């Protein structure tokens, strides 16, 4: 057959945290329908298999375990592909996310992080970006330049607000988040610099080489048909985001 065993019933149970715009999120609190790029991708895959995706929303930490308890068949939640996870589950990488430097759209000068010297950056507290800034400051110090002034805020939305207010010169975030915010507020923000490091998101399922193969093929089919590019454009995500190896 051309579809996985679990899709044969006509419904595809997909677990997600539902709180990661623009990948999957509720447009308004209390909405019944999830939306987002990843939601569209999963729906497209389900359509290929002649099934309908049914989203099960749960706490992020409990997503993978619910594959074992058969409460879901797929996990698609902007979840990173890591070796440790691949030991227990099968995963298909399909999305590469980069760390970016987000600045106000009026900023013409900033080309690299070093241009932040002596300026104020708003950073989400408790993230690895704090270390990114610390490293940057070390570089600046050795070059004899002023360090970056860093303020930390408890939420991702809080830091972007600081740019909008005009207080912070920039922030560091994922390109997905940046794309989403830029879509929400056209002409307010722009990406000044994209870091080399990237994270790869994917779709997880229970260990089964056949199922994994078919999932991979379904994604590749979307790539080839141009449907994936259309979705990327719809959610204003970088056109190259899905150009990642699927193994």
């Amino acid at each position: 057959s051309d579809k996985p065993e679990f899709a044969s019933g006509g419904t595809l149970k997909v677990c997600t945290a539902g709180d990661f715009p623009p990948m999957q999120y509720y447009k308004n609190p209390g909405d019944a329908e999830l939306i987002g790029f990843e939601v569209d991708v999963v729906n497209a895959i389900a359509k290929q298999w002649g099934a309908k995706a049914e989203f099960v929303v749960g706490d992020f930490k409990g997503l993978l375990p619910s594959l074992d308890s058969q409460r879901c068949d797929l996990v698609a939640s902007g979840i990173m592909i890591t070796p440790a996870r691949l030991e227990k589950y099968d995963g298909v990488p399909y999305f590469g996310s980069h760390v970016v430097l987000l600045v106000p759209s009026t900023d013409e000068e900033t080309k690299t992080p070093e241009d932040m010297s002596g300026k104020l950056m708003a950073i989400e507290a408790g993230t690895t970006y704090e270390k990114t800034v610390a490293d940057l400051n070390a570089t600046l110090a050795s070059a004899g330049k002023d360090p970056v002034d860093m303020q930390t805020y408890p939420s991702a939305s809080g830091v972007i607000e600081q740019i909008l207010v005009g207080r912070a010169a920039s922030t560091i975030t994922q390109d997905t988040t940046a794309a989403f915010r830029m879509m929400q507020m056209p002409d307010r923000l722009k990406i000044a610099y994209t870091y080399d490091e990237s994270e790869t998101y994917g779709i997880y399922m229970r260990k089964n080489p056949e199922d994994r193969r078919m999932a991979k093929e379904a994604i590749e089919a979307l790539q080839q048909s141009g449907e994936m590019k259309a979705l990327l454009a719809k959610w204003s995500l970088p056109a190259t985001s899905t150009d990642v190896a699927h193994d």
Partner: protein
Amino acid sequence: MFDFNLFTTAIFGWPLAKGALLTLVLSVSVMAVSLVVATFFGLAAGSGKKPMRWLIGSYVWLFRGAPALLILLFVWNGLPQLSPVFRATWFTPFVAAFLALMLIQVAYLTEILRSAFAAVGKGQREGAAALGLHRWHTFILITLPQALRIAVPSLVNEFISLLKATSLATVISLKELMTVTQFAIATSFRFLEWYGAALVYYMLMVSVLTFAQSRIEAVLSRGHR
């Protein structure tokens, strides 16, 4: 810039209303129980024997001192480890939040009521006692009305603080007004509309309280110049 439509849908939408209802029910029930308990504590602290005073003093010290967040976490995560009773299904986040906030609120209200009771002159109690009124009648009819006149503004202060403090219960997964608002903002990024809508709810609740306060104060101030 300000999307008035979104603002009205936010206000009249179910999620925020549900959050507000939770906030309201939780605060009102905590306040009601705490007032009763704190009345006894306040009386005991003001007139009781030394060990009693000391005991209540320690209680107040502990529960005014410990941050609400820690008490919430302790009640929710710690108690189930201490006794299987708290692992049963009735021990929902709401019950845990009620218990934790009540423990704290009692401490604050005890202090307010203790000092208000003390502010009512001894002569008033003597006047009532000489008429043969029992201790409880004296308390309810003479001391309490005069003490409340002094205490009501502070009690309403604490009620309002409690209304806001319920938002801490988000750490034990209770989705009250402020939590709902912040989730909505995290995705929609519409600060003004959502915060505006939440503000309307809070101001509505506080307005009712403020009005009630001024009515109660007016009634209790009759005869006092």
